[in-house]
């Protein structure tokens, strides 16, 4: 009886149509309520608001990030106890640098950190302000400091996340990016306990950026490397994404996805280990499945969940064409 209906809506409709009695409907509703699928959905929905750690634990790989979180958590706890017992407690400098290729989880982790640090009472608001060069650098002399300070002000109590931070150092001596960096450094000292600054960017560029600005790296005690995902991690990510959305792959679709990711990794260096690419493929496959199902006959619970080899192929034809275009454009 448990799997007979896919939603409570369906039960109400069946009752209204006269296909089931009220007693049967109530039974079905009760079953629906206690079925694990619903429980899982409830849990998913409640996570972001109340447990960032669980959210983090759900991310595949990223072992160094998880270790760091454990350290910070322990430190924050101990500091709190020290404070209670009247011992000196140190405030923790948590400015960070995230290095890694696109799609390796930098932004995702930053967003979770905001919530997490709020839960650990390291930050009082825990919001994440995501900015890039254009938000910080101004158009005329003196404008930059003003704009940067504005962003810093917005981020007080939370995280200021600067994506592609190395671009602040590009453009040479006269570039306003330098002014932005100086303002940031000042702000880091002024709001030491109220703000966490995260600079993120590609590995090579970030390393160069820090070399050029030696004062910076000493101010960022935490440097996190986001390695490319391995092939098996990418598969795990795909499976997690699908199961969270209540879809599943047929075994031939699994094989198809595997060889596809392997090929991409071999051929396009930059996108190797890119989780965003996987997400795009999965989301496109889900849309392809919808297109296929709309055209097909009657639907059932199983059909709605299964993603076939055809869906994956249709989804990736588009992707690889797009990727080829981009690759060519970059070569030019």
């Amino acid at each position: 009886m448990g799997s007979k209906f896919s939603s409570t809506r369906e039960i109400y409709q069946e009752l209204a149509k006269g296909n089931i009695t009220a007693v049967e409907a109530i039974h079905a509703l009760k079953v629906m309520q206690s079925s694990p699928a619903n429980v899982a959905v409830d849990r998913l929905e409640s996570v972001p608001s109340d447990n960032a750690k669980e959210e983090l634990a759900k991310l595949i790989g990223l072992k160094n990030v998880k270790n760091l979180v454990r350290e910070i958590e322990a430190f924050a706890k101990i500091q709190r106890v020290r404070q209670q017992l009247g011992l000196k407690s140190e405030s923790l400098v948590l400015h960070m640098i995230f290095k890694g290729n696109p799609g390796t989880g930098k932004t995702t982790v930053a967003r979770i950190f905001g919530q997490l640090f709020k839960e650990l009472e390291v930050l009082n608001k825990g919001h994440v302000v995501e900015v890039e060069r254009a938000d910080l650098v101004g158009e005329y002399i003196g404008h930059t400091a003003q704009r940067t300070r504005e962003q810093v002000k917005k981020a007080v109590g939370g995280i200021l996340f600067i994506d592609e931070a190395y671009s602040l150092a590009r453009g040479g001596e006269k570039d306003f990016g330098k002014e932005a960096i100086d303002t940031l450094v000042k702000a880091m000292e002024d709001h030491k306990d109220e703000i966490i600054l995260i600079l993120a960017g590609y590995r090579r560029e970030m390393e160069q950026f820090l070399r050029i600005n030696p004062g910076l790296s000493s101010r960022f005690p935490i440097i996190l490397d986001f390695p490319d995902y391995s092939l098996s991690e990418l598969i795990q990510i795909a499976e997690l994404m699908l199961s969270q959305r209540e879809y599943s792959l047929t075994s031939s679709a699994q094989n198809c996805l595997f060889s596809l990711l392997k090929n991409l990794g071999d051929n396009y260096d930059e996108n190797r280990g890119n989780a965003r690419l996987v997400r795009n493929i999965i989301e496109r496959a889900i849309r392809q499945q919808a297109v296929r199902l709309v055209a097909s006959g009657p639907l059932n619970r199983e059909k709605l969940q299964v993603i076939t080899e055809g869906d994956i192929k249709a989804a990736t034809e588009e992707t690889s064409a797009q990727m080829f275009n981009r690759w060519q454009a970059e070569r030019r």
Partner: protein
Amino acid sequence: MHKCLIVGKPNVGKTAFLLSFSRYLGLAQVELRVRTSDGSIHAKRRSIDCAYTELVGPVPHITQELQSVVLELPVGKGRRSFELVDSSGIMDGIHASPVVRAAMAQTLEAVTAAKVIIHILDAAAIGLLGLSEGVGVIDRDLAEYAQQQGEYFLLANKMDLAGAQRGLQIITKAFTQVQTFPVSALTMEGFKEVKRHVARVI
């Protein structure tokens, strides 16, 4: 505003309780918000006497939609308003009329949205028929389901009729876990306790 839903089999006195309880709380006329199973809403204003003759009667399934009244109760130092919602009766079997079936589906759906669920039983009928007939499968299942959804309690209605005392005994024996209030929608007997309890749970 919290919803307080009245459920039960047909002809146990759900609508009678709605109107009578409104009168007990000091209203002379009610503004009924009627929500039909196809989703349309309209309001009608009636004096309680007038509504009583129009909406209450011996024929089952006079109420084929959700109809509600906004009431106020003193809670603590202030007053709190809540929506008392009357629903179409739930019965076992497949009813011949599609309108009634849709109304039953609507009732079950409303159960999930309600904060408080008042389940009414006909104590007189249960007293007359005995345990096996009176407290049917539907009442047991409904009770079990509704208890998971929110605050839940029973009203043993029609206590003014002969045989209701015996019915009440049967009911309390069948639903040992649930708080049961003997009432009569006709004479307003037992309303004081119900009022106090509702004020506590909304």
